[in-house]
């Protein structure tokens, strides 16, 4: 299979909804390509959360310099659901943090694009290693504490968890601390696709109602359609308002998504949680993602 990555990258500025949709399309295409080349990895979550990533990285909510992802003033994103890294890698590549051709090395020997993010590999934009669920959000809380309580700057920290990940008890330890320390500079995004490896969330272990849990843990909680850019931007805008107004409340964005969104035969099917597409399936997916 002859797979080539397009050269096009997108600037980090407040993009229109239409532009965000185009960026998300590029992210999805790159996810499919990298997974097809790896013949290993997770398809469902990355495709389902592409619209969230496009909004977060290109909607003007995160301040970063693609050519210098160690810049001291940057806002930080911690991927708590480490297995979803193909979407983070594709997003960073579309932002110009590293050459898109490197997406072809996903999960390969010596790659900077480890199967689960490895900070030691030094891929620009990867803030932490993650993959053991429930830890990234705590790291993000620690970062937000450092920014707000010690350095007293206006940097922002974002972290995305899955919904199955909410079964890890330490997630709620982190949530408790985020509101205890009044971290209005912290934004928690929950990718609520209602799927995990073994099946539907309710069947494996019911974590609902997520919104009421987040509220009772002290978060300003927004539930949005995770494939609707108007709603996603509204939610991230609200986070910025919370920080600007010193509300003392962290923000939780519960994004209702469909696993595998954008590819008809993967859509809302938990069997695609941890599978890559075959070469034929990848071609079919790319034909749909135009």
């Amino acid at each position, binding site marked *: 299979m002859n797979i080539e990555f397009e050269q096009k990258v997108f600037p980090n500025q407040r993009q229109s909804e239409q532009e965000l949709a185009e960026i998300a399309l590029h992210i999805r295409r790159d996810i499919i390509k990298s997974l097809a080349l790896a013949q290993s990895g997770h398809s469902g979550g990355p495709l389902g959360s592409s619209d969230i990533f496009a909004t977060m990285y290109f909607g003007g909510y995160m301040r970063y310099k693609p050519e210098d992802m160690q810049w001291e003033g940057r806002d930080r994103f*911690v991927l708590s659901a480490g297995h979803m890294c193909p979407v983070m890698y594709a997003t960073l590549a579309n932002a110009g943090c590293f050459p898109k051709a490197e997406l072809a090395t996903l999960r390969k020997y010596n790659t900077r694009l480890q199967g689960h993010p490895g*900070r030691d590999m030094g891929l620009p934009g990867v803030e932490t290693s993650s993959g*053991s669920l429930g*830890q990234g959000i705590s*790291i993000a809380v620690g970062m937000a504490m*450092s920014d707000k309580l*010690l350095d007293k700057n206006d940097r922002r920290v974002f972290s995305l968890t899955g919904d199955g990940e909410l079964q890890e008890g330490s997630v709620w330890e*982190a949530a408790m601390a985020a509101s205890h320390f009044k971290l209005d500079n912290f934004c928690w995004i929950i990718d609520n696709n209602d799927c995990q490896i073994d099946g539907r969330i309710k069947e494996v272990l019911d974590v609902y109602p997520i919104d009421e849990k987040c509220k009772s843990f002290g978060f300003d909680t927004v539930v949005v359609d995770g494939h609707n850019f108007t709603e996603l931007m509204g939610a991230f805008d609200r986070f910025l308002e919370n920080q600007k107004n010193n509300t003392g409340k962290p923000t939780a964005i519960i994004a209702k998504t469909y696993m595998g969104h954008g590819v008809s035969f993967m859509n809302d099917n938990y069997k695609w949680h941890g599978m890559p597409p075959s070469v034929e399936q990848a071609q079919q997916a790319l034909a749909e993602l135009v």
Partner: protein
Amino acid sequence: MQELTLLGSKPTRHGFGEGLVTLGERHDNVVVLGGDITGSVMTSLFKDKFPDRFFSIGIAEQNATTIAAGLALSGKIPFFASYGAFCALRNADQLRISVCYNEANVKIGGGHAGISVGPDGATHQVLEEVAFLRTLPHMTMIVPCDYLEAKKATIAMGEKVGPAYIRFGRSPVPLFTTEDTPFEIGKAQVFREGNDIALIANGALVWESMLAATELAKKGIQARVINCPSIKPFDVETVVNAARECGAIVTAEEHQVHGGLGGAVAEVTAKNAPVPVEFVGVRDSFGGSGEPEELMVKFGLTWKEIYASALVAMERRDKGSSGYRQVKDVEQFS
């Protein structure tokens, strides 16, 4: 070499707490996370002096460990202290991934180590964490022998970049090192010269080894006592020299005989200079309630066991291959 004598008795946790205060005075970016038992692990000293750099995380050791990683990745030097049972093992995965794999500059103080915790009983008497921690890539692990060494070690680990763990105890233990006693991460120190048998110990068992050496000297046996606080990095050179020059070793620690200091010594000698090694430690069992002194006797962690083990190790050495144990005498846990 400086002659070491008994100067008094003080818990190692005091050294940790005071060392933290020194670090706080020297470095603005040292911060401390509390896990609700700040008085018993002595982080309360730092809290009182630097309230703006102290954060109470509650009874949530996994979260505290991982928050510490986030702080470290933001340029801070976070210390989190709790009982070793909870800040080395309950949070084991957080230490492995968020701290060590991230190479985050996180420092952990693990208190109430060993059976000398006393009345609290087995749940709180951690005896297994050294075995785990020394297998973690990037980790530094220190087991100080007395109050003053604990203080020096705390300061040293705070000023060395990278994940680090210090193990300390609750009860008063003999104080015998001085300001002049050298301490360096990665180094063991010879506390007593001798070439007949090497006694390699850390924690409270170092003083017991000194007592055993005094008793052995009465029989004309000159024991070399080696204080080995640095479990990782490990002072291979000093241990191998002891193996070559003494030909037999006893290890002593307030930990399971598996995987701790004894395990490290066995690995190093097996590879570089195989000699008979006898292991003094807790023999594959949990602790229990009692007074610290009673428990140290019950679990065989006194100079008497070290003394007896030294005689066995020397006998095995002197017999050469005929000193190999008979199959019927082989113990499953040592």
